[in-house]
C-alpha cells in the first residue's frame, strides 16, 4: 500500500518540522535567554527572532531584564546609642548580564535581599538614633555604594534602594513620647514662673507709682491749704481770726460727717462754737 519512498519522505518531513521548531526561538522584549551548547554556556539570546542549533543548543534559563522590585522585609536594627529601630526597604535591581546572574549565584533575589538587610543593619549601626531617623538619603546612598560592588560579579545592577519605614521600636517610641511630654511640661512650668515673676514686678511698680502720686497729692493739698490760709488772712487783715475760721470750718465738717454716720445718732453741738474752737486751740487763742 505504502511504498518505501513515501515513508522515508514522510519521516524526513517530520524530522524537518521538529528540527525547525526546535531551532527557532522567539525571545520576547524584556527577556533574554541563556543558551547552553552541550551543557556549557554558549550565548545569550536578545529579544526577537533567534535561531539555535537544534539538538546541541538548549535554552537553559529565561531571564527577565526588566527592573525587579524587591521588598526587603522589616528588621530590628540597633543604633550606635543602643536604641532599637525597625526598618524595611525596597530595592530595584536590574539584570545586566543574564549569564553572570544565573551562573554566578544560586538565587540572586535571595542573595540581594540578604545583602541589603545586612548592609542596612551595619550602616544604621554606625549612626545615632536621631541621625538614623533624619537622614534617609544618606543611608540610601551608602547602601547603594556598599552593595554595588558585591553584586557586580552577578551581573546585576542596583538601580535604587529606598528606605520605606524607619521607626523606633514600641518601647523606644514610648520613651521618646515621654521625653517629649516631659520637655513640654518643663517648658510650661518655666513659662508659668516667668509669668508670675512679671506679674509681681508689675504690681510692685504700680504700688510705687501710686505712693509717689499720693505724696505729690499731699504736697499739692498742703500748698492749697497754705494759699487758702493766706487768702483768708489777707481778707481778715491778720489776727487770729483766719485760723479760727479754718479750724471752725473743719470742725463743722467733722461734725457733719459724724452726723451722717449710722452708728452715732447723738451729736452734741456746742452752742458757742467760737468759744469751743478757742477751747480746742487752748493757749493759741490768747
Amino acid at each position, binding site marked *: 500500500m505504502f*511504498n518505501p*519512498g*513515501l515513508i522515508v*519522505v*514522510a519521516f*524526513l*518531513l517530520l524530522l*524537518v*518540522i521538529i528540527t*525547525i*521548531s526546535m531551532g*527557532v526561538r*522567539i525571545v520576547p*522584549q*524584556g*527577556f*533574554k535567554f541563556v543558551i547552553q551548547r552541550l551543557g556549557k554556556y554558549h550565548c545569550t539570546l*536578545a*529579544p*526577537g*527572532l533567534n*535561531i539555535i542549533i537544534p539538538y546541541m543548543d538548549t535554552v537553559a534559563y529565561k531571564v*527577565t*531584564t*526588566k527592573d525587579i522590585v524587591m521588598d526587603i522585609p522589616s528588621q530590628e536594627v540597633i543604633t550606635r546609642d543602643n536604641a532599637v529601630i525597625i526598618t524595611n526597604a525596597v530595592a530595584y535591581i*536590574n*539584570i*545586566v*548580564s543574564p549569564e553572570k546572574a544565573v551562573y554566578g549565584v544560586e538565587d540572586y533575589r535571595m542573595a540581594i535581599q540578604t545583602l541589603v538587610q545586612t548592609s542596612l543593619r551595619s550602616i544604621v549601626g554606625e549612626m545615632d538614633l536621631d541621625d538614623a531617623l533624619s537622614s534617609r538619603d544618606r543611608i540610601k546612598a551608602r547602601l*547603594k555604594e556598599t552593595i*554595588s*560592588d*558585591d*553584586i*557586580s*560579579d552577578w551581573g*546585576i*545592577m*542596583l*538601580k*535604587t534602594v529606598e528606605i520605606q519605614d524607619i521607626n523606633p521600636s514600641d518601647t523606644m517610641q514610648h520613651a521618646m513620647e515621654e521625653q517629649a511630654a516631659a520637655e513640654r511640661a518643663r517648658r510650661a512650668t518655666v513659662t508659668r514662673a516667668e509669668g508670675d515673676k512679671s506679674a509681681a514686678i508689675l504690681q510692685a511698680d504700680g504700688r510705687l507709682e501710686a505712693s509717689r502720686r499720693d505724696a505729690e497729692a499731699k504736697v499739692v493739698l498742703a500748698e492749697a491749704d497754705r494759699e487758702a490760709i493766706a487768702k483768708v488772712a489777707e481778707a481778715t487783715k491778720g489776727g487770729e481770726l483766719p485760723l479760727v475760721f479754718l479750724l471752725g470750718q473743719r470742725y463743722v465738717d467733722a461734725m457733719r460727717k459724724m452726723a451722717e454716720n449710722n452708728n452715732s445718732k447723738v451729736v452734741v453741738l456746742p452752742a458757742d462754737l467760737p468759744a469751743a474752737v478757742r477751747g480746742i486751740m487752748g493757749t493759741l487763742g490768747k
Partner: protein
Amino acid sequence: MELQYWHWLVFGMILIISELFIPSFTIFWFGLGALAVGGLIWLVPALSLTLQLLLWTIFSALLTAFWFLVMKPRMVDKTRAGMSREALLGETGLVIRTPEGDRRGVVRFSKPLLGDDEWSFICDEPVQLGDRVQIRDVSGNTLVVAPKTNKQSL
C-alpha cells in the same frame, strides 16, 4: 483519493492561520511551503504523493533559511527598553572626577542613563578631567570605560 492542488492551498492557509494561535514562527513556513506545492501541482498535476511531500519539505526548509539569512539581519531593534546593557554600551560621557588611588572616577552623561546621569567608572588608561569616555562594560554599578579619542585614532 488523489491530492488536488487546492488541497495543498487550503492546507497551507490553515497552517498559516494556525500561526496566529501558536506563535512560534515555525508553522508559518510550512504553510508557505504547502502553498508553493499547491501552485506547483496546479501547473504540473501529475506529481506523485512522495514527490509532493519531498517538495513540501524542501520548500519549507528553504523558506526558513531564506528568512534567517535575508530577513533576520534586517530586523533592527526598535527600542532598547528592558535591555540595560545594550542601552549603556557605546554611550559617551564627560569625566567630572578623575580616579585617584582606590577612589573611582565619576562620569556625567548629558542625558540620564538608567535613571542616573552620574556614574562611577573604572578606566585602564589615565584620563584627565573633561575627557570624553565611552562605556565598554558594566560591573555592578560601576562602568568600565575607555577614552573616546583613543578609540577613534585606532
